[in-house]
């Protein structure tokens, strides 16, 4: 899976925010606020990733069990899907 492109993200006031740019602005308005793990998954999903790869990225960066990481990954991916931000 992979998220849609056309976003730029940066730290603003201690939070990572992503905003649409270019043609993406015609389909998405507003901003996305990302906490620590979400920001990491957001960056990973700029490229094609499997669920396993996302879990490995989280367990490598944070002191979390694979089970907890998997729950985080699934919750975040669902959020992206609900917001139509995953590539079909």
């Amino acid at each position, binding site marked *: 899976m992979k998220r849609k492109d056309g976003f730029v993200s940066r730290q603003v006031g201690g*939070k990572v925010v992503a905003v649409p740019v270019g043609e993406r602005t015609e389909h998405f308005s507003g901003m996305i606020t990302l906490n620590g793990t979400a920001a990491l998954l957001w960056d990973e999903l700029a490229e094609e990733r499997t669920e396993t790869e996302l879990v490995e990225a989280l367990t490598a960066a944070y002191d979390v069990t694979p089970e907890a990481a998997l729950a985080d990954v699934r919750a975040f991916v669902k959020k992206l899907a609900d917001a139509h931000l995953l590539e079909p």
Partner: protein
Amino acid sequence: MPGEMESRIRVAGLTVALYHTHDYLRRLCRDYLVPPTAAPDLTVSLDPGEIEAEAARPGGLRGTPGQVESLCLCRKLADLLPTYGVLLFHAAAVRVGERGFAFAGPSGIGKSTHAGLWAEYFGATFVNGDKPLLICREDEVLVCGSPWAGKEGRQQNVTVPLGGLCFVRRAKENRIRRLPAEEAAARLLSQSLTPREADAAGSWLTLLDRVARLVPLWEIECDISRRAAELSYRTMTGSP
């Protein structure tokens, strides 16, 4: 383009060449004009048909052709400024001594009225009543005037350090609190237009982060009264 003229202005430490066809823009720019010998850092012009397209767009900019032209140019300039370390920020900014203070919030919330109370009671003067520019350096944020100052046209061509930025909400009781940087992102982003181009949008976010980290941020819930203005004035300026 036929009848095209150029107004060369100096704003936020930048020399900008604006190409336009209506006299309206020239009048707006009167306090910022510089001789055409000054080399421009930026050039802004509109594409043929852009004003007509804007006027026809639902929810587009409204006004006389001259006003729409000036706002289209303003928006185009605002898209380019972040690359030069400058943000156009929707707020009412005033000057008190050698410091600037800004009030932000959704249109119609009363930020301009609140800034006006500072002028009436405490001798503050308007830097810009609608669209001040913020020069966002790595270690300080300055606020300065711009030709685009809303309906009332209250503005002056000055640059002062920004000593505070306050988000205004209407309420029956007056209350002010310091806004932590972590709460600032959504509010800051909502008062400035995201540049369409990716690099400029990245710079834009970096500059908003500087505002979040370097400027004391506040949120006031208030009515329109002298007491509300006294509360924000004492709190934000540190006056007794």
